[in-house]
């Protein structure tokens, strides 16, 4: 079971890649309006390759959202709302990006003292009870 779980990600990639190569290569080119993104996107070169990469990134970001506890019914809409560039920035890196949440700090005594001093010096803004110094 555990093994299966470890394999689920590579399998998902292979399946996604298979489906995508089909959908990307079967209809060669369609007469169509060329989207505006083509003229403003930073990375317009190598379009076909990046299209596959974009889809893989979206699969990856979906999994990251699920792992972060987002309701499955909300995940698709949230990933769809991201542009390709944004998905590219998130894929595989989400854990390192800051999330603004005003987390209540579980503070060690040492850290408490450091933060108290930096608050008093006007370098941080953790404790509401510290009167912040003004520069002028």
């Amino acid at each position: 079971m555990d093994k299966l779980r470890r394999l689920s990600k590579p399998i998902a990639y292979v399946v996604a890649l298979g489906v995508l190569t089909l959908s990307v290569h079967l209809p060669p080119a369609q007469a169509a309006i060329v989207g505006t993104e083509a003229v403003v996107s930073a990375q317009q070169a190598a379009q076909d390759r990046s299209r596959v990469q974009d889809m893989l990134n979206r699969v990856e970001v979906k999994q990251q959202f699920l792992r972060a506890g987002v309701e499955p019914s909300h995940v698709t809409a949230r990933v769809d709302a991201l542009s390709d560039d944004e998905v590219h920035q998130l894929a595989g890196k989400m854990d390192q990006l800051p999330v603004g949440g005003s987390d209540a700090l579980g503070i060690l005594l040492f850290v408490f003292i450091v933060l108290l001093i930096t608050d008093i010096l006007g370098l941080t803004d953790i404790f509401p009870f510290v009167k912040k110094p003004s520069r002028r």
Partner: protein
Amino acid sequence: MLNTWAARAFSGGLFVLALWLSGCAAPLQLEHLAPSAFPEPVEIKDVVFFPQEEYQCGPAALATVLNWAGKKITPDALAPEVYLPERRGSLQLELLADARRHGAIPYVVRPLLTDLLAEVAAGDPVVVLQNLGLSWYPKWHYAVVVGFDLARDKIVLRSGLEARHIVPLALFERTWRRADYWAMVVMPPEKLPRTAEETPYLQAVVPLERLQRWNEASVAYETALARWPLSLPAQLGLGNSRYALRDLAGAEQAYRAAVGAHPDSAIAFNNLAQTLADRGRWQDAEAAVQQALTLGGPHVETYRATLAEIRARRAATE
């Protein structure tokens, strides 16, 4: 004796350590800001205040600026769209994406204190990401800047449970600098941010297309054209969104402006051709797509397909 010496050394050491750990050596942008740049105090008083529930400063900040942009919405309604339960917070990119889902244009302000203040002075509240703690012990937080007073050294924020959190400017800049000076305004499509630049603004608008918010997109492209009349992405975007709305005459007009100002844009010729074909003007359509093929470029396969389709449709009708 030894005890007091040790205590003194300890507290002194802690003080120096605190300075070092907080990395406060680099000069602040504030030092280069002339008070005469913004002589008058500013405060946008009508900005709504949503006291945040636990960890929910992302939804609260976003709801604050979305309401300012005319979208009636509460933080509770936004939470399922931007909150990450396991991480107890919201990503910057999701705030941007979600603003678009509600038909507004999120614009990331340049990482400059002067630009932040200019937006507020222009009457628009600005969402900022702050690290209220230290780089190695972060406490990430979203707040909304609604006012400032350089002479009195203060900045006013909608923040957490405080409707008017007043912070000295240097302290604010330090907490903001630790979040890489990230700030965004959320605009209705008909209004350009005060500090907007052409390419970043259009990059903020284009993702509305994948959400099929064509009405808002077309208005935003018109807003961009009012400021940058010759912008190729704005002309194309206006044509593309009108085309998607089946306003073929309007689309043709926008594409004609695009090929007039940018006779080297194959994409503009292709899209004009597609529109003319949809209007049954086969000859003009074919001439336009031939021009696209002559110019070539990365989408040449699409232009060939457009030409083939025009010929096939023409043959079917004649």
